[in-house]
C-alpha cells in the first residue's frame, strides 16, 4: 500500500493513498465535525452536509473533507477563521429550515445539530422562511416515527438503508427545497419494504427518526452499558441505555461481529426485560396451583428431590436441559452440576434441535463443528451459496452483509424450498424440495468432478477418501438430481460451474440442512463440496453454519451435550474422564447421557424421574407437542428456571425466577466462535437471580463446594479445562471478543479455522447416497410442510411476544400456501385452514403466496397455540439425534 504525507493543522501525517482528508485528520486525532459522515458508507457518495469543510492551501473554495482524497504534500487547515465562518453558514442554513423546539424535542442531548450549534455559537438563522410548510409525522411503523420537519437531509438514513441494510425502503425524493426522505410513491413507512431494523434511526443525527417510546427520558439522564444482543447467533454488539432501573433504548455498537448494525429484535426488542410478566419470586406447585415461595423453600425442595431421586433411582434418573440463551458460565455450571454433583451425563439443550448434526458432521469431516469463517467475511467472498437458511430473517445482520457482497459483485446462489428475499436477488435460485439437500450437493459435486473443476492439488495435499467420493457422486447426474430436487437441470449445472470456478466460495447454511433425518449427512455433504473445491481454510470461503440462538455455540462448547465435556472432550474417553474427575474432584460417569428427544421418551416410559430445565421451552420448540406434554406430565418432579412463565414452566413443580441477560455478567459465544461479554446493566427484577448464582447455590446445598465471586472466576475455570478457551479471560475480552480456538493467554484468537491443516489433520470426504425424508406425502397427507423462523419473532416467543409492536404485527401462527394450491382448496388469503398430520391437527390462517411451491407449505415454528410443532414428528437422524422438523406430510382443508 502506497503511503503519502500531508500536513493537517501544522501536523505532518502519513496515511495510505486513497484515505480521505477527514479520515487522515481523525487518524491524527484531529476532530472534524460531520453530520452526514459514517465510516461504513461509500465516501464518494457523501459530502451532503458540508459541516466538514476544511481549507486546503491553494484551493479557491473550502472543500468537504469527507469526500476529498488526501494527496501528497497537501496542506490542510481544519480550524481557520474561514473554516469556522463556513461552518457557521452551514449551520445557519440548516437552522433556517429546522424547527426550534429543542426544549421539547426527544432527541435533545443526542443531537449533533444541537451540539454543533452550541459549539459554533449559532443561535438562530438569518435565512428563516416564516412560510415553511409543516408536514405530518409518519407514525405508521410500530417501532419508530419519522418527522420530516426535523430532517436536515444529511442522507445517512437513506444510505444506511440502501448501502448497508440493503432494504431499499427509503430514498431521496424530489429536489431543491422540496427534497425529502420518503419511501417510493410517498407510501407510509409501514407499507414500504422497511424491515424495522432501525439502523436509520440509530444514525439519524437529529430528531427526524426517533424510536417510539413508552418511557420519557432525556439523554443526559441515561447511562450506557455495552453488551451482547440476546437474540440469534450473530452476536451483535450493542449499548443498553438505562434510566434508573429500566432499559429505555438500545443503540448498536461497532463490534467485529456486527459492523454497528442491529435488526428489529436487537434494536427494539428489549422491552421484554422490564415486562410486568417477568417471574419475580420462586413458585412451588401445591395441589395443582403455583404458590409463591421463598428461595430457601424452593431450593430446599429442589435439593431434596435431587438427592432423593439420586438415592432411590440412581443418578441417571435425573436429566437436565441447559440453555442456549444463558451464558457460557451458566452452561458450564449446569453441566457440572449434572455431571459432578448429580453424577449423570443426561444433559442436553436445544442445539439438539438445530445444529446437533453440524456439531457431529463437521467434527467428523474437519474436526471442529463450528462456522469455519467469520461474520463479516461475506464481504470478501467471490461467491456465496446459501442453502437451508433464510438469512435475512433469521440472521438479519449477516443477511445484510451477504446482500452487500452481492451488490459489490459477488455471485449468489440460493438453494431453498422457499423463494426467500435472498432468492430474489440470487444469480441462480434453485427451489429444491424440502429434504433433498444431500441429492442437491451430490449433484453439484457430480458436475464439478465431471468438468474437472475440483481443486486437485488441495485434494491431494489436504484431504482423504476422495476416491470414495468420486465413486458415489458418479450416479448423481444432473438429470437425476433435477428430478429428485424438482429443479431445472441446466440451473444445477450452471450453479455447479459457478461454485467450481469461484476462487473464494463460501457456503452459508442453517436448519434447512440440519433438521432432517439425514441432517448429519446433509452437513457432511456441504463439507464435501467445500473440500472438493479447496474452500476450507481460506478467508471469504468455508462452511458457515449459522447458529440460531445467542449462545447455542457456547452451550455446545461448554459441554451441555450428553457425550461431551467442555471443549468437546468425550465422556467415554478415559483420559478426558480422568482429567475432569481431577479438575472437579468427583467421580464421573463414562456413559454418554440421553439426548433431548431421548429424555422425553425416558420420562414417557418412566425410566427418568426428574427433569431440570434451565431457560428452555421444549413444549413449544420440540416436535410433536402432544407427545412432549404427555411425557412431561409423567415426570415425578420438574424444575424450571426461566425469566417468564413459559408453556413448559406450567408443567413444573418448582419454578425458579432467573435474571435476564441485562441483569448479569457473563459471556455468549456467537456463531463465528467469538466469545463476547454480557454485562449487568440493571439489578435483577424482583427477587430473581442470575442462573449462575442459583446453580452455585444448589451445588453448595448438595454438599459440593461452588464459591464463585463472579462469572469471571467461572470463565477462568472454563479456560483451565477447555483447550479452545484456554486463553480467554474477562480482562482480555473487555473491548473486543476473541474467537476460539484461543489456547493461550497470548493467542490472538482464530478468524479462519483450518488454515494450515484441518483440526482433525486431513479433511475427510464422507460421501453418502440420498435417502428420502422419513415421512413422504401420500393420498391422505399430500403436502409437505416445512417450518422456520420469521424476522420478528425469536424461538418460542417468550421474549418477543412481550414486545408490543412485534405482537401486534405477528400475534398468531399462519401457513404459507401457493396460490394454485389455495385455489384448488378454495382458500383465500386470510381464510382459516385446518392443517392435519399424523400427530395432530390445528386451525391456522392461510397466507397465500408464491414463495412456496404448489406441493409445499410453510409454517413459522414460534407459536404454541395452533403451532407447527403439533404437526411435526420426532423421526431422528441416527447420528446426531436431531428430529426431522423440516419435513412433515400434512393435509389441508378449509376450516
Amino acid at each position, binding site marked *: 500500500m502506497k503511503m503519502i504525507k500531508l500536513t493537517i493543522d501544522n501536523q505532518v501525517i502519513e496515511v495510505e493513498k486513497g484515505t480521505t482528508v477527514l479520515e487522515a485528520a481523525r487518524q491524527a486525532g484531529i476532530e472534524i465535525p460531520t453530520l452526514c459522515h459514517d465510516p461504513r458508507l461509500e465516501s464518494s457518495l457523501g459530502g451532503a452536509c458540508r459541516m466538514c469543510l476544511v481549507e486546503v492551501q491553494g484551493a479557491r473554495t473550502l472543500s468537504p473533507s469527507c469526500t476529498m482524497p488526501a494527496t501528497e504534500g497537501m496542506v490542510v487547515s481544519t480550524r481557520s477563521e474561514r473554516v469556522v465562518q463556513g461552518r457557521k453558514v452551514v449551520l445557519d442554513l440548516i437552522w433556517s429550515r429546522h424547527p426550534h423546539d429543542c426544549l421539547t424535542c426527544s432527541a435533545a442531548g443526542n443531537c449533533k445539530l444541537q451540539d454543533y450549534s452550541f459549539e459554533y455559537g449559532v443561535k438562530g438563522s438569518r435565512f428563516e422562511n416564516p412560510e415553511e410548510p409543516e408536514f405530518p409525522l409518519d407514525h405508521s411503523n410500530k417501532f419508530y416515527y419519522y418527522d420530516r420537519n426535523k430532517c436536515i437531509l444529511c442522507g445517512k438514513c437513506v444510505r444506511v438503508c*440502501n448501502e448497508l441494510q440493503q432494504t*431499499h425502503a427509503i430514498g431521496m425524493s424530489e429536489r431543491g427545497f422540496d427534497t425529502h426522505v420518503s419511501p*417510493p410513491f410517498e407510501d407510509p413507512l409501514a407499507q414500504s*419494504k422497511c424491515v424495522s431494523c432501525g439502523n436509520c434511526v440509530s444514525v439519524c443525527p437529529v430528531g427526524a427518526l426517533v424510536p417510539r417510546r413508552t418511557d420519557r427520558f432525556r439523554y443526559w439522564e441515561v447511562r450506557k452499558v455495552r453488551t451482547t444482543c440476546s437474540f440469534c447467533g450473530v452476536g451483535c454488539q450493542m449499548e443498553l441505555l438505562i434510566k434508573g432501573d429500566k432499559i429505555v433504548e438500545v443503540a448498536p455498537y461497532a463490534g467485529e461481529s456486527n459492523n454497528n448494525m442491529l435488526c428489529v429484535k436487537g434494536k427494539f426488542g428489549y422491552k421484554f426485560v422490564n415486562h410486568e410478566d417477568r417471574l419475580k419470586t420462586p413458585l412451588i406447585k401445591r395441589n395443582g396451583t403455583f404458590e409463591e415461595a421463598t428461595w430457601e423453600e424452593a431450593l430446599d425442595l429442589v435439593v431434596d428431590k435431587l438427592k432423593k431421586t439420586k438415592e432411590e433411582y440412581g443418578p441417571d434418573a435425573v436429566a437436565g436441559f441447559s440453555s442456549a440463551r444463558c451464558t457460557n458460565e451458566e452452561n458450564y455450571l449446569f453441566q457440572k452440576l449434572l455431571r459432578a454433583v448429580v453424577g449423570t451425563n443426561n444433559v442436553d439443550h436445544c442445539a439438539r434441535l438445530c445444529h446437533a448434526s453440524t456439531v457431529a458432521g463437521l467434527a467428523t469431516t474437519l474436526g471442529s463443528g463450528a462456522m469455519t469463517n467469520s461474520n463479516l467475511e461475506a464481504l470478501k467472498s467471490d461467491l456465496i451459496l446459501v442453502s437451508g437458511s433464510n438469512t435475512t430473517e433469521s440472521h438479519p445482520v449477516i443477511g445484510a452483509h451477504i446482500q452487500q457482497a452481492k451488490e459489490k459483485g459477488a455471485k449468489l446462489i440460493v438453494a431453498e424450498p422457499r423463494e426467500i428475499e435472498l432468492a430474489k436477488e440470487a444469480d441462480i435460485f434453485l427451489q429444491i424440495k424440502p429434504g433433498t439437500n444431500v441429492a442437491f450437493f451430490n449433484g453439484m459435486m457430480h458436475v464439478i468432478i465431471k468438468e474437472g473443476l475440483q481443486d486437485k492439488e488441495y485434494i491431494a495435499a489436504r484431504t482423504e477418501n476422495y476416491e470414495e467420493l468420486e465413486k458415489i457422486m458418479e450416479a448423481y447426474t444432473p438429470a437425476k438430481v433435477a428430478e429428485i430436487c424438482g429443479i431445472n437441470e441446466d440451473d444445477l449445472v450452471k450453479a455447479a460451474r459457478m461454485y467450481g470456478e469461484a476462487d473464494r466460495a463460501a457456503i452459508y447454511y442453517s436448519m434447512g440442512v440440519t433438521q432432517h433425518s439425514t441432517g448429519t449427512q446433509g452437513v457432511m455433504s456441504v463439507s464435501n463440496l467445500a473440500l472438493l473445491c479447496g474452500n476450507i481454510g481460506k478467508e471469504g470461503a468455508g462452511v458457515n453454519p449459522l447458529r440460531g440462538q445467542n449462545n447455542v455455540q457456547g452451550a455446545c462448547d461448554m459441554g451441555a451435550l450428553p457425550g461431551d465435556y467442555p471443549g468437546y472432550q468425550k465422556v467415554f474417553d478415559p483420559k478426558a474422564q480422568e482429567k475432569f474427575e481431577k479438575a472437579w474432584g468427583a467421580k464421573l460417569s463414562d456413559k454418554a447421557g440421553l439426548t433431548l428427544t431421548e429424555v422425553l421418551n425416558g420420562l414417557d416410559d418412566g425410566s427418568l424421574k426428574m427433569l431440570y430445565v434451565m431457560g428452555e421451552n421444549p413444549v413449544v420448540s420440540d416436535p410433536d407437542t402432544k407427545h412432549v406434554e404427555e411425557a412431561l406430565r409423567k415426570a415425578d418432579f420438574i424444575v424450571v428456571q426461566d425469566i417468564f412463565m413459559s408453556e413448559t414452566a406450567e408443567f413444573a413443580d418448582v419454578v425458579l425466577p432467573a435474571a435476564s441477560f441485562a441483569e448479569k455478567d457473563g459471556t455468549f459465544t456467537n456463531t463465528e466462535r467469538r466469545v463476547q461479554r454480557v454485562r449487568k446493566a440493571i439489578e435483577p427484577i424482583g427477587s430473581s437471580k442470575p442462573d449462575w448464582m442459583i446453580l452455585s447455590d444448589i451445588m453448595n446445598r448438595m454438599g459440593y463446594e461452588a464459591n464463585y465471586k463472579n462469572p469471571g472466576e467461572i470463565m477462568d475455570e472454563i479456560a483451565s479445562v477447555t483447550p479452545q478457551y484456554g486463553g480467554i479471560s474477562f480482562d482480555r475480552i473487555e473491548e473486543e471478543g476473541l474467537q476460539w480456538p484461543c489456547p493461550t493467554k497470548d493467542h490472538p484468537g482464530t478468524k479462519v479455522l483450518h488454515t494450515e491443516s484441518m483440526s482433525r489433520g486431513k479433511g475427510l470426504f464422507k460421501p453418502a447416497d440420498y435417502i428420502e425424508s422419513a415421512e413422504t406425502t401420500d393420498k391422505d397427507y399430500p403436502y409437505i410442510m416445512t417450518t422456520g423462523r420469521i424476522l420478528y419473532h425469536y424461538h418460542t416467543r417468550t421474549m418477543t411476544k412481550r414486545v408490543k409492536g412485534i405482537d401486534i404485527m405477528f400475534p398468531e401462527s399462519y401457513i404459507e400456501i401457493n396460490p394454485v394450491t389455495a385455489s384448488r382448496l378454495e382458500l383465500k388469503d386470510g381464510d382459516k385452514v385446518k392443517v392435519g398430520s399424523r400427530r395432530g391437527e390445528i386451525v391456522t390462517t392461510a397466507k397465500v403466496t408464491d414463495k412456496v411451491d404448489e406441493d409445499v407449505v410453510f409454517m413459522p415454528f414460534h407459536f404454541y397455540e395452533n403451532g407447527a410443532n403439533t404437526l411435526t414428528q420426532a423421526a431422528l437422524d441416527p447420528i446426531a439425534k436431531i428430529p426431522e422438523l423440516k419435513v412433515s406430510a400434512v393435509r389441508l382443508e378449509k376450516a
Partner: protein
Amino acid sequence: MENNQLTKEMYDELERFIEAIPDKENAIIAVLHKAQEICGYLPREVQEFIADKLNVPANKVYGVVTFYSYFTTVPKGKYAINVCLGTACFVRGADKIVNELEKKLDLKIGETTPDGKFSLDGLRCVGACGLAPVVMINGKVYGKIKPKEVNKILAEYND
C-alpha cells in the same frame, strides 16, 4: 395521450425496449424517457414495472422520476403547454403569459384541465432566447408572444 389508460401494447413496447438494453441497471433515465414517450406519463404502475424489469429498487426509480422536472407522474393534457421560464423569457414577461394562460384555462401551473385537453407547465430555457418569451404546445414553438395573443393561440386547438 388523449386517453390515460395504459394499454398492454404500451407495456409490451416498453418491455421490448428494456430487453434490448445490455446494461440495465444504469439505464434508468433512458428507460423513463421512453416510458413517458410511450405512456404519456409515469404513474406508479409504470415505475414499478420499470424497477422490476431493470432489477433496481423502486425507490431508485421514484427518486429519479421526482428529481427531474421533465418526468411527470400525472397525465398531461392532450395539448401540453410549456412556458419557458428561463432568464431571457422571464425578463421579457413570461410570468405574464403564465398568468394569462392560468386565467384563460382556469388552472394553476402544473395542472391539467378537467376535460384533459390542456395542461400547463413551466420549463427552463428551450434554447430559443431570441424568440423570448417562448411557449411550446406539443412541440410547436410560439415566439415573441404577448399576453393578448394567448386567446388566438388557444383557438388553434379548438377542436
